[in-house]
């Protein structure tokens, strides 16, 4: 009996293993579908240059601006964004309506839903037309401990602005749609002008959402040509200059003793305080005793390597031997940090199409440095920023591509509705290059359809490509 049971179990086990292997094998053979780039398909009529040329603007014009600081109004707007279960349901609906074709929009429902946001949107409308926006955040005193105000609701407001622009477009009120776009793009600029990288990315995201509605507006019957409105937008639309300067300096804002160490450098106690502070930052408020212990352990681990590094960098061996342990380790860590930091930040001084390769290399160098200089807490403060630079430039590429589309519509209006065979045929207005590659956009004409393409940067995904198909209508 016992033998029979054993044999039965063995058979069952073997069968189960074979079945599992078969299932795993079939799973391994199933490859995920290759992601395809999104194609933006437009149907629009030729449209001549407006008279006067700057009739349409996508940012509030000077005459519409009022003195004052916009930031206070944005804070006020954020407080009046509805919340709760009902608000969540509206937001789900808003996301759906943003994807609904214009002719199928439930206009009354949309008006009812957007009315709940009217108080917040009014503050945004006023803020967007203020002359300046000073967020006045205490980054200089707080450094990495700066508390960032909640920003997620501004993205909700941007979506509501998009929906309102969409609604006005469906109603045939291009002027009102442009007004909403002006509000949203001005808000994006104000956020992007904030002191941190997060502000820049929020501004980029808001502008990206708003520019999708330009695609919609172009297709509206009788829509104006927005070539000069798009050309009038700042380039770059989101400048990373200020936020990158802030990023590069935040370590020294946080540990001010590193900036002005005095003629003899930091004392061992000061170095210890800096290292402990760093470990506490990394460990999210780790107890000081734990930071002390980790600091001690890392010191034991790093001291010989730190001495070798300083000597290799040109310090005299006797001087290095005479230095206190904390000073040796601190000087080593900071030196490695500063070298790697500038390898990243220097690329923000050139256009993306010139910086792309260098930024990718610097990211690899940072990865290697993190492995080679294991335990250096300063290196963990350095983010890989190439993606942030790409995202802001991708926004500029969208604007440049829309300028090309509008240039084609303008050319067609002057040539009996026929698109140019090449972009270089367009003589009425300058044609922008793709800011990602620094070269012209890919362009071809198939029948009445114009195709505009821009590749993803090296190492990018299909989502990073850009493809427009514009079918010219009569």
């Amino acid at each position, binding site marked *: 009996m016992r033998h029979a049971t054993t044999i039965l179990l063995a058979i069952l086990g073997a069968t189960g293993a074979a079945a599992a292997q078969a299932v795993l094998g079939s799973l391994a053979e199933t490859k995920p579908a290759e992601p395809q780039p999104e194609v933006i398909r437009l149907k629009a009529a030729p449209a001549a240059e407006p008279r006067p040329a700057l009739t349409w603007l996508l940012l509030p014009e000077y005459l519409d601006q009022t003195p004052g600081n916009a930031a206070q109004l944005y804070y006020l707007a954020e407080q009046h964004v509805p919340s709760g279960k009902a608000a969540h349901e509206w937001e789900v609906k808003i*996301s759906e309506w943003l994807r609904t074709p214009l002719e199928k929009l439930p206009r009354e429902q949309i008006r009812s839903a957007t009315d*709940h946001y009217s108080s917040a949107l009014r503050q945004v409308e006023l803020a967007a037309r203020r002359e300046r926006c000073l967020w006045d955040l205490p980054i200089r005193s707080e450094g990495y401990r700066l508390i960032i105000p909640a920003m997620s609701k501004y993205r909700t407001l941007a979506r509501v602005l998009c929906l309102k622009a969409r609604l006005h477009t469906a109603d045939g009120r291009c002027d009102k749609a442009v007004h909403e776009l002006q509000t949203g793009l001005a808000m994006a600029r104000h956020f992007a002008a904030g002191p941190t990288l997060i502000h820049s990315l929020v501004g980029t995201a808001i502008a990206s*959402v708003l520019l999708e509605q330009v695609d919609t507006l172009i297709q509206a019957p009788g829509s104006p040509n927005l070539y000069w409105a798009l050309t009038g937008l700042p380039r770059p639309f989101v400048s990373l200059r200020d936020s990158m300067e802030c990023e590069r300096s935040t370590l020294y804002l946080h540990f001010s003793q590193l900036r002005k160490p005095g003629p003899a450098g930091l004392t061992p106690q000061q170095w210890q305080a800096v290292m402990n502070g760093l470990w506490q930052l990394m460990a999210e408020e780790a107890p000081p005793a734990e930071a002390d212990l980790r600091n001690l352990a890392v010191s034991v681990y790093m001291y010989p390597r730190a001495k070798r590094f300083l000597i290799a960098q040109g310090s005299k061996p006797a001087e290095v031997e005479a230095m206190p342990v904390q000073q040796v380790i601190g000087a080593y860590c900071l030196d490695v940090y500063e070298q790697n930091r500038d390898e990243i930040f220097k690329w923000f001084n050139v256009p993306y199409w010139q910086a792309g390769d260098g930024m990718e290399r610097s990211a690899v160098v940072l*990865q290697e440095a993190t492995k080679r200089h294991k335990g250096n807490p300063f290196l963990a403060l350095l983010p890989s920023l190439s993606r942030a630079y790409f995202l802001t430039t991708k926004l500029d590429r969208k604007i440049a591509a829309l300028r090309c589309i509008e240039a084609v519509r303008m050319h067609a209006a002057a040539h009996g509705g026929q698109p140019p065979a090449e972009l270089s045929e367009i003589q009425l207005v300058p044609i922008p290059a793709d800011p990602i590659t620094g070269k012209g956009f890919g362009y071809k004409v198939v029948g009445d359809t114009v195709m505009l393409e821009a590749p993803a940067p090296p190492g990018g995904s299909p989502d990073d490509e850009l493809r427009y198909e514009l079918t010219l209508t009569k």
Partner: protein
Amino acid sequence: MQDQERLGPAERELEQALAALRPASAKIDRDRLMFLAGRTSARRRSRLWQCAAGALAVALAAALSAALYARPAPREVERVVYVTVARPPAVPAEAPAAPIATPEPGRWRGEPYYLKLRDEVLAKGLDALPAPRGPAAQPGIPDRTRFPLLRLNDLLRGEQL
């Protein structure tokens, strides 16, 4: 006396020597006593300190070894920025329902300060931005900031806005 007369010369000499002896009182040498007590005490303390120092050294060595082995893996700093701009919000379990992903409970100790928030945003995109805290306008309740008269009435009733 008779006995004395019976003593021999040697015995008499002994008797005289004994008679010359002066009785001495039983006396404790205080200084020596203190010295001996101190030395004994010091010896005991010395051993205790050695034992304590030895135990501490062993404990410290064990703690340092544990810290070295158990320290977290170095953080990877390659970060992919993925900004989702038009994703429909996820359905939350309960109100208050914000479409933006909120950090895990207890993730932030206190407020989300810049370093943590920046790293989260670079790693996960803007959905990592925390939902705002505190009261916000509720649907169905009159937005009193839109109606100054309501605010005035509230103030006159002594209510705080």
